[in-house]
């Protein structure tokens, strides 16, 4: 019997399956991105790159907490000028390579976009732990719109905008990205959080606070995706705690056209094939197409 197709057109890209590698996970080198592609990812998002090299925050940069990971990597990257060669290696994996980029202004974003040739861009307007970047811009709808517009004007590939949940109303940010001409929004980045070493009172992360990812934030992500997808005309890509195929089904039912997987890579690269195979079996059992599954929760609004 023919297995249901997992192929999907989303945000200007055609993916052979809707399970992508999320930004910031195993995305520093072209080789590790290609490895994710070969392991079955439908697309891969790079580590965020900026205009100048950054070493990132001092350690600890990552700490395991209840049901998730807390990180404050601090946007380490070698600058976009050194990154095209990694993108070119990643492309040999045979799936779309989405470059995550960050800057402190619309002009800086546009400059980086002009200097890279990925299959699409994902604008990091949501990192919660780097001064002057990420959510410090991305929590203002007018900034989201301006940055998106500037990159759309500078780039000739699709532009996705990754949104922060650290706001009163994520839908407002999604609408701003749509007004700016985004081809899709990606929701959500990590939730601003911290952990303290009770023996000494020291905040554990070198940066003191960081972003929470993993299973702990999945219900938050599902709600954000549900709200965004019911409001926006552009597609929503769901990210936040997707660990199993059941999580992917839930995220897609909330309205996501595709999902991204990050923290679940703690289990290794096999997570991509586990999720796509489970999703495929589910669609077959329910006699549904991926398109029919998308947004299925809305009928119960």
């Amino acid at each position: 019997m023919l297995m249901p197709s997992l192929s999907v057109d989303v945000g200007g890209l055609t993916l052979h399956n809707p399970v992508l590698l999320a930004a910031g996970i195993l995305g520093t080198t072209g080789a590790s991105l290609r490895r994710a592609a070969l392991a079955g990812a439908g697309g891969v998002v790079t580590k965020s790159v900026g205009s100048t090299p950054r070493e990132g925050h001092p350690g600890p940069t990552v700490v395991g907490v209840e049901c998730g990971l807390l990180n404050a990597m601090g946007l380490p990257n070698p600058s976009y000028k050194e990154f095209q060669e990694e993108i070119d290696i990643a492309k040999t994996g045979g799936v779309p390579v989405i470059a995550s980029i960050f800057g402190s202004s619309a002009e800086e974003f546009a400059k980086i976009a002009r200097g890279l040739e990925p299959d699409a861009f994902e604008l990091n307007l949501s990192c919660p732990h780097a001064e002057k970047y990420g959510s410090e811009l991305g929590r203002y709808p007018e900034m989201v719109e301006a940055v998106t517009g500037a990159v759309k004007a500078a780039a000739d590939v699709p532009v996705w905008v990754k949104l922060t949940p650290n706001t009163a109303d994520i839908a407002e940010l999604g609408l701003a990205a749509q007004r700016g001409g985004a081809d899709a929004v990606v929701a959500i980045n990590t939730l601003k959080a911290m952990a303290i070493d009770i023996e000494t009172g020291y905040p554990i992360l070198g940066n003191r606070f960081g972003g929470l990812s993993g299973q702990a934030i999945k219900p938050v992500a599902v709600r954000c995706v549900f709200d965004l997808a019911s409001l926006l005309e552009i597609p929503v890509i769901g990210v936040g705690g997707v660990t199993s195929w059941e999580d992917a089904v839930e995220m897609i039912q909330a309205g996501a056209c595709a999902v991204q997987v990050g923290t679940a890579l703690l289990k290794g690269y096999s997570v991509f094939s586990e999720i796509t195979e489970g999703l495929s079996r589910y669609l077959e059992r329910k006699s549904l197409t991926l398109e029919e599954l998308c947004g299925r929760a809305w009928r119960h609004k």
Partner: protein
Amino acid sequence: MRPLNSIIQEVRAEAPSIRTFRLDRQLDAAPGQYVMVWVRGVDEVPMSFSGPDSITVQSVGEATQALFRLGAGCSVGLRGPLGKGFVLRGEKILLVGGGVGVAPLAFLGEQAKSIGMEVTSLLGFRSSEDLIFQSRFEALGDIIITTDDGSVGIHGRVAAGLKELDLDLFSQVYLCGPELMMWDIISRCIDQANKIQVCINRYFKCALGVCGSCCLDPDGLRVCVEGPVIMANRLLESEFGRYRRGPSGGKGLCRS
């Protein structure tokens, strides 16, 4: 996991810039595995075990300098043991170490000897004052020492001592030291690469296999979880010995 609090029990100076820190807990580590040591308020850095409850550290940067300011009774945070350590194979083994890289090999050799293996050691140092753990290795079996300045043992690099040995006689070789020294040894023994276990070093951040800062070209091997001990034949066609990535992810030459 959150870092475990650990009180330093004893600090021993092994050489001018090398100290051993004995901790208040045994982490059940295999030689070659590492622990992320959090010097609070400064940074978190990976360190190999030099014994079941000790790490031996060379002062090379801000975090290790801060660690050197800590004495018995001070505390650090520990995440570990992490990664894949050395695996003992066969009956007659060779340890090849350089500088502070001999530390995990002393720990490994002691485990090997305790289960009846025959242990030979080839150890290289810059000079006599950098020589560490001589008595530990002497207690294990035959030992050859080289120094760059000739102040002890054979005058020359570690490879100079290799000429004294017939590698065919050993079931397994264990290598740890500066990258260019290890690459020099591996490139002289390419036909034996399938029996050389190498403990390598890359820039670790998360130490959980997710951040990607330690991935090795061209296969994307995650050194922090799939290493740090790797068979030499997997390194032959890799970046090892040629370049390595720094904290930004940018490539730099191997300088030592």
